[in-house]
């Protein structure tokens, strides 16, 4: 058994880092206002949204041991649900008129749950097929599904095809002005915090234990009496739902969606965020998203070949920090974040 002393040190180190991070994120819009850099608010909104997508991927990747290279597909679906329904809501035309009429809308209360549900639905379908494979085949099949969706939206001329689709305005939410960057920022922060809290409950629940068991040893899970496939599928669906919410947010933030959102390089980017921040930790992906997007932003000021510098950095982190940036900050035994 660990001694009580070392436990409290770990908790402290983790808690301190967590508190500092939370405070920084809470005061960021104010600080950006004082520094006269309003651009920071939208940059950090973007970071929070991608952090949400990365945390959702980490649920299946880090905790469930399912390496997906198609996670951006669900972000894209969430974003397109918003864009398409908003377009019809703005024009006052139905989305479909047969077999029943579905009208468009611009209300976030309607659209965002729709984005989450449809992404989850797509994840259920894709997951049910992909999870019959494992390892390299699973990576390839998730990649293939995401690319199929990518080309589907590229060829969907009605909704802009390759050029994508612009929103006329952000969605409406009673009591919140989504058009205001500060309010939108805090909404993103709230969404990320809520998803982190849900994930934290989830990984320590019975379900979370089963998922972690499947990551370690699927064969043994079956011989213990678990229907591993079903648990993995539900995990896949939850991850897809989280990505769908991120998609809904990104569509509102940029007021523009395009097939590029679900391109496999985007899935790769989310995967890198998870690896960089620390796979199998809750807050790692948040750190990873922040690090990657900030570095991208910073390096591209100096050179357009910023990838040249980012690449070696990634390699160093993967080689020397086993649990990513989170592992470095929280110490070796900082459990799951």
């Amino acid at each position, binding site marked *: *058994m660990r001694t009580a002393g070392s436990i409290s040190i770990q908790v402290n180190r983790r808690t301190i880092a967590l508190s500092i991070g939370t405070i920084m994120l809470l005061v960021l819009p104010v600080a950006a206002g004082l520094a006269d850099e309003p651009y920071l608010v939208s940059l950090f909104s973007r970071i929070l949204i991608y952090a949400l997508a990365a945390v959702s991927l980490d649920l299946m990747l880090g905790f469930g041991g399912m390496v997906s290279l198609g996670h951006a597909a669900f972000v894209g679906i969430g974003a397109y649900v918003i864009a398409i329904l908003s377009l019809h809501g703005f024009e006052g035309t139905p989305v479909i008129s047969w077999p029943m009429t579905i009208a468009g809308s611009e209300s976030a209360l309607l659209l965002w749950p729709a984005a989450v549900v449809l992404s989850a639905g797509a994840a259920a379908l894709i997951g049910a097929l992909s999870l019959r494979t494992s390892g390299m085949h699973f990576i390839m099949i998730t990649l293939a599904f995401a690319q199929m969706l990518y080309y589907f939206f590229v060829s969907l001329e009605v909704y802009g095809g390759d050029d994508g689709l612009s929103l006329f305005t952000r969605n409406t939410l009673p009591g919140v002005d989504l058009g205001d960057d500060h309010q939108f920022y805090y909404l993103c922060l709230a969404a990320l915090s809520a998803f982190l809290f849900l994930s934290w409950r989830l990984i320590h629940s*019975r379900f979370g*234990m089963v998922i*972690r068991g499947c990551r*370690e040893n699927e*064969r043994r899970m*079956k*011989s*213990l009496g678990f229907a591993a496939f079903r648990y993995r599928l*539900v995990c896949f669906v939850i991850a897809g739902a989280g990505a769908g919410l991120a998609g809904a947010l990104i569509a509102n933030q940029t007021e523009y969606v395009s097939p590029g959102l679900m391109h496999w390089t985007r899935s790769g980017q989310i995967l890198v965020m998870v690896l960089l921040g620390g796979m199998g930790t809750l807050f790692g992906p948040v750190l990873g998203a922040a690090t990657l997007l900030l570095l991208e932003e910073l390096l591209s000021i100096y050179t357009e070949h910023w990838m040249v510098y980012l690449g070696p950095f990634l390699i160093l982190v993967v080689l020397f920090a086993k649990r990513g940036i989170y592992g470095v900050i929280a110490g070796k035994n900082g459990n799951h974040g």
Partner: protein
Amino acid sequence: MAESLLSVRSLTKRFGAVRASDDFSLEVARGELHALIGPNGAGKTTALNQLSGELLPDSGQVYFDGRRITRLATHRRARLGLARSYQITSIFERLTVRENLSLSIQAHNGHSFRFWRKASHDPAILQAIEPALARVGLEDRSDIPAANLSHGEKRQLEVGMALAGHPKMLLLDEPYAGMGPGGAVELTKLIRRLKADVTILMVEHDMRAVFALSDRITVLVYGRAVASGTPEEIRQNPLVRQAYLGDEVNGCSR
């Protein structure tokens, strides 16, 4: 046989030209410890895999507790009370000993589509975890990651996990594999204790353990059961001696 808990009838499994199981039949009575022995490559593990459901036979039937389970999925067999432990230790290395056992308990305690309450606060698990730790003698090691256990302790945990769901029958695949003398003594004690509660089918190479523990022994050669009987009968069986045991039996009966 009405008393059979496990009944295997004419199981056949081919891998290409090799008959890993060839018209293999076996009866395991309720409450007995039955050992399955045979030379290397006799198809012992293949047989066990077909009983646990990880392999499906080409033909033949398996009955467990009065139910035909020939083509039932592994996790369903486990839920019927047919548990197995592995030759190569198969525990969850990154989870603690307690978490390993609590997962095993969870498997037999309702479904696990529960997303909110902490598993470690689940009363059903809490109630069963201490006895499960005690049964395999790992109370003092409960909060360390399973990867840090000694080989013997890992084997104990391995068996403990199979037992946590209170199975009717336990399939033990070479429990003594790679075990030092000290660990083997501990394990023998553990298996002796288990015999009282659960029917066991054990595949094992360690003849000393087999003859010390078994009620009945079945000898497998080239996928076929060539003899079945009490340790004494097996020791006397000329066919068995010729096919497989030879000197080892003499060595043990010294």
